[in-house]
């Protein structure tokens, strides 16, 4: 195995066994934010425990894979064919090592491709690097996450979304309602605005390479990202779609130019099994640095209570405009009338009450006398019975 091939295998190993620091911190803060003793809190804890177990035993956080994407930034004149070949060899070796499950088949014959290397798979994309550094990023998606992707064209009458930013917001929320818990939620949603069907989807897909806490440099888009994250976490879909506060860890949006009649909104999704990492390589193919900071120690916070938020007491008294003279006169008259009616009815009720009390008193006295009569009758009977028994004896 060449140095480049073994570096790429190491990249696959790192991406599939260890979540990068930003993702881990995102999951930890989601765990903290969930309500104590709730189902969603338990689920978030299981998700964190899964990473701890995987890291301890050097196992992939999930074996399920449906696509692997290498994004290469290389200086001009790089031998792209040999880079692609190295990526294919690395994927075959990773499959042999059990880092990736056997997932690839030939769609025509249905025959499984044992090494996960086939026509156009794994995908290797190239871009010209701004400097002479060789950087390779990797993204691995599972079946659920890939299937959760969606695309629509604005204006879209079926979801009442116009060709404007509120329309984009509506479309993304519609996608979330469709996704619910599929694709191992909570995750990150990548959104591509504009372009065409293919380029929009690629743009959305590329957003998943951004850091969890990253915001778009364009102010309007950054605001939309923030707004949508808030909206998403208010939907109540929660981890795995089983209810809770954390539906998403992040929203990443980017825009491309768009034809004036229609705007494509493309959505790509990646769940908490966020297998994404990157390396900068030396010219010999050795690993120089990791692009995404790694976590030295996966530690689940023991005290998981978030600081209670201070809530301002809400003023619930209804606010009214001052009364006009005419209104005041009418209202006061009405109040007076009600008061007099009340007092009259109260007087009547008290009079009735006195009568009723008298009636109950007489009833209780009569019942007392009747019980006394019964008792004497019973005594007489027993006497008679005793006499009879004595007579017989």
């Amino acid at each position, binding site marked *: 195995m060449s140095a480049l091939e073994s570096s790429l295998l190491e990249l696959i190993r790192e991406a599939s066994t260890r979540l990068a620091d930003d993702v881990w911190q995102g999951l930890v803060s989601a765990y903290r934010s969930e309500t104590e003793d709730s189902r969603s809190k338990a689920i978030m804890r299981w*998700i964190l425990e899964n990473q701890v*177990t995987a890291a301890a035993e050097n196992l992939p956080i999930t*074996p399920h894979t449906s696509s692997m994407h290498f994004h290469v930034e290389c200086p001009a004149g790089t031998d792209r064919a040999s880079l692609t070949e190295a990526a294919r060899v690395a994927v075959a070796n990773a499959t042999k090592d059990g880092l990736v499950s*056997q997932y690839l088949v030939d769609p025509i014959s249905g025959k*499984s491709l044992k090494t996960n290397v086939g026509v156009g798979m794994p995908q290797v994309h190239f871009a010209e690097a701004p400097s002479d550094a060789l950087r390779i990023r990797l993204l691995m998606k599972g*079946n659920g996450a890939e299937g959760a992707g969606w695309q629509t064209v604005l204006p879209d009458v079926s979801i009442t979304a116009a060709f404007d930013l509120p329309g984009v917001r509506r479309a993304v929320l519609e996608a979330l309602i469709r996704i*619910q818990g599929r694709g191992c939620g909570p995750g990150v949603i990548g959104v591509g605005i504009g372009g065409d069907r293919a380029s929009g989807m690629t743009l959305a897909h590329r957003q998943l390479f951004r850091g969890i806490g990253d915001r778009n440099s364009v102010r309007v888009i950054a605001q939309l990202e923030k707004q949508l994250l808030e909206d998403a976490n208010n939907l*109540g879909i929660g981890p795995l779609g089983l209810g809770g506060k954390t539906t998403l860890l992040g929203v990443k949006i980017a825009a491309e130019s768009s034809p004036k009649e229609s705007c494509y909104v493309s959505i790509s999704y990646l769940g908490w099994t966020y297998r994404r990492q990157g390396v900068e390589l030396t010219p010999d193919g050795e690993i120089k640095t990791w692009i995404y900071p790694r976590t030295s120690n996966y530690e689940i916070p023991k005290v998981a209570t978030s600081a209670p938020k201070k809530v301002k007491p809400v003023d619930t008294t209804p606010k009214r405009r001052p009364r006009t003279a005419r209104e005041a006169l009418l209202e006061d008259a009405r109040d007076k009338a009600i008061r007099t009616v009340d007092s009259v009815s109260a007087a009547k009720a008290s009079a009735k009450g006195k009568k009723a009390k008298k009636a109950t008193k007489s009833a209780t006295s009569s019942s007392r006398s009747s019980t006394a009569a019964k008792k004497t009758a019973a005594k007489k009977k027993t006497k008679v019975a005793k006499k009879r028994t004595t007579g017989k004896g």
Partner: protein
Amino acid sequence: MTALELPAAVPTMRELHVGEQVALTGTIFTMRPAVYEYVHDGGEMPFLSEGSLIYNASPVGRKKGKKWTIDSVAPDHSTPLDSMIKELFVRFGVRGVIGRGELGKPSLEACRQYTSCCFHTIAGAGPLLASHVKNVNEVHAIEKLDPSDAVWELEVEDFPIVVMIDSHGQSLHDMIRDVSNRRLLNLQL
């Protein structure tokens, strides 16, 4: 968290309600779409007994000598198998299916009719779920199928699951969908 021991009796299943967290202990059997189709075509599953649970999963394991050990056992989507779940209840007296993803009307009706449940476990969490497997009793049909497609008989302890559909005709996914739709309307877009 409710503890559930297998084999599960009808009254126990009736006590489980939608959204409840359950710690499962006992023997479960993994099944893949290929095996579902085999059952659908009239195939027999002699090792399944009344009150057992099926787990839709493709395990990743290793054979050491004669013994299998398990590295990872993440759930598969139950959604494509929706129409075939009832057959397991009818023919083998299975009391529940564990998986991930939404299930629709056919499973909802089957669970009500046969006092059974459908469960959701943590999607993707292969190593965590494998750590709850205490023993691999046997791997059935391994000679005919790929290891991940075979029927693995797993002895589990405190296996974490959530009730997705209960025997009273309630579905957690339907509830969450209703909540999220209502909240979407409240956003007043």
